[in-house]
């Protein structure tokens, strides 16, 4: 179990390396500031004549290279390192901006991209799947299992963890399959069959691995594995990532967020239901109906997250 997580982590780090190596040698940091501002930090002090000359800069949004954004003014800090580019109009910060700076030799511009932090974006996918678009309370998926296994906290925890593992593994497999088999060969219409097959495969694999590696854990999780196959939460993740053309890291974040969101929902619901066991629920509402009502109240509370934008 532990080694498995380690490997997963290693894989994630490996996938990240290229994006880390991209840092430039002229510019050490670049970010959006005010709505109409880009802040650049140069590696070495730059002369004001060059750094504040509007004509030395070309800025455009990545999809629209033909439309140059007009810079109003550029201010340079006293140490000559930080430049503030003030644009005439607010920037659309959801897009990646491409900035070309003419360097001293005036021949070839130095080109780099300014975008919101990619880590922040990944984190926002995670948070979105976890809270804002919680699969249970705002997307209404996996309800059968949700109501079925949220009676006891132990069960809920076991189920939630199993789900998260299976979800992450199957989503990653689905992603590879989708990117490298289905898309190149135009087999998109086989999505459903392939994804459900991969989910079953993952369940089988987790089952076998767990049985060998950690029998004690298998004892506690094994029961839920069967339930996992026929569940829409699991199958929804690959469908969503195929729809949105996520890359590997985004897939990882989505599946992790969805899984832990499911775990969170299950755990909260189970602790609430354990407490409700002591209440005198009206006879007609006993069991599933009252669970629905409570889930509805949860959904009302989760409305508080709607419109949340972290990055």
């Amino acid at each position, binding site marked *: 179990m532990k080694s498995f997580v380690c490997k997963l982590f290693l894989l994630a780090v490996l996938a990240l390396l290229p994006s880390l190596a991209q840092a430039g040698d002229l510019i050490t940091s670049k970010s959006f500031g005010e709505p109409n501002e880009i802040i650049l930090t140069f590696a070495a002090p730059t002369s004001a004549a060059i750094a504040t000359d509007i004509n030395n800069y070309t800025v455009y949004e990545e*999809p*629209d*290279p*033909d*439309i140059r954004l007009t810079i109003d003014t550029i201010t340079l800090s006293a140490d000559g390192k930080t430049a503030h580019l003030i644009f005439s109009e*607010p920037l659309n910060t959801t897009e990646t901006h491409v900035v070309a700076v003419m360097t001293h030799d005036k021949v070839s511009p130095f080109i780099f991209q300014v975008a919101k932090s990619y880590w922040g974006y990944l984190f926002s996918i995670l948070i979105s799947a976890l809270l804002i678009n919680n699969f249970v309370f705002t997307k209404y998926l996996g309800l059968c299992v949700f109501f079925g296994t949220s009676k006891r906290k132990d069960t809920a925890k076991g189920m939630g963890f199993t789900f998260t593992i299976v979800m992450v593994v199957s989503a990653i497999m689905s992603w590879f399959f989708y990117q490298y088999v289905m898309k190149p060969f135009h087999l998109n*219409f086989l999505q459903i*069959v392939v994804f459900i097959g991969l989910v079953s495969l993952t369940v089988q694999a987790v089952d076998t691995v767990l049985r060998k590696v950690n029998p004690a854990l298998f004892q506690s999780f094994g029961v839920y594995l069967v339930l996992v196959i026929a569940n829409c939460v699991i199958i929804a993740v690959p469908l969503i990532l195929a729809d949105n053309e996520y890359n590997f890291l985004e897939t990882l974040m989505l599946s992790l967020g969805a899984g832990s969101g499911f775990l969170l929902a299950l755990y909260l619901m189970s602790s609430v239901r354990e407490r409700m066991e002591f209440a005198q629920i009206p006879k007609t509402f006993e069991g599933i109906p009252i669970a629905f009502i409570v889930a509805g109240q949860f959904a009302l509370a989760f409305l508080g997250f*709607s*419109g949340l934008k972290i990055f």
Partner: protein
Amino acid sequence: MKDIMTIIIRLTVSCLMAGAVMGATFIITSDAKKQNKYKNEQKVSYGLLGYDVSKGIPAEVKLHELFRYVVTTGDELSVGYLVPTGHGEHGGFTFISISLDGSFIGQYPVDIDHASVRDESDRDQAILTALGKGKTIRYADQTVIATANDQRTAYLLSGKFPGFKTFIHVMLALEPDFTILGLEIMEHEEDPGLGAEIKEDYFKNQFIGKSFAAVKYLEVDKVPLPDDYRQALDGKISKEEVALVQQNYKDKNIYALTGATISSVSVTNGVKGITKKFAYRIGILDAVIQEQNIAVPF
């Protein structure tokens, strides 16, 4: 062992059967899907232009599709437009390549017909063949130019921009002088009762009749919508009266939806951006077409 063999064989057979069923369905439906999608788009397009598809479209009205691409040659970026140039079965399209600062680079006849031009992969393939080696292209967007009797009557632009929650997809119709002719919200996920009201007539029709000069500086006002304006926007009064009222509010800003300022601002800014960018681009394209004497049907 024998068991396993039978299982494998039966599984293979069933997989093949399933595959056959799905494959057959896919083949049958994929064309229909494209057709239907196209029809729907046409319906919306004509709707924005003020025609009702079910009542028939006048013969002189024609829609011409224009595809914009970003072309990469080595490190250099340039823009390319795939424009219909002839009416023949083949060779009816030309790819015009324009540098980032607006100067003409070259034109390449593209061998593709009107049906397959709508298929992205077919189209990309045809363009790449026409451009020759060493170039990569990226599809950017599509514009429809409407003509009546070979005179431009409108532009239809589609675009998306971030709304309150997710992206809002819109289709926008402009007159040749970029006055807004109509706005249609295609897809959105705004809150029901709040941001979702952007697709209601009383909001989206506010854009109608705004001149390019007004659109450039369009803002959102957080004041209640006047009653007479609302009546007009909802189309509850006769057409002449509507035109009159709209004339009054022509230069006014957009009235924000109550409780959904963010959605209102996003739509306004989105429309502003789309219009401005398009106006800039079509200017360049027209200049190039004129300069190079390219025969276009619009």
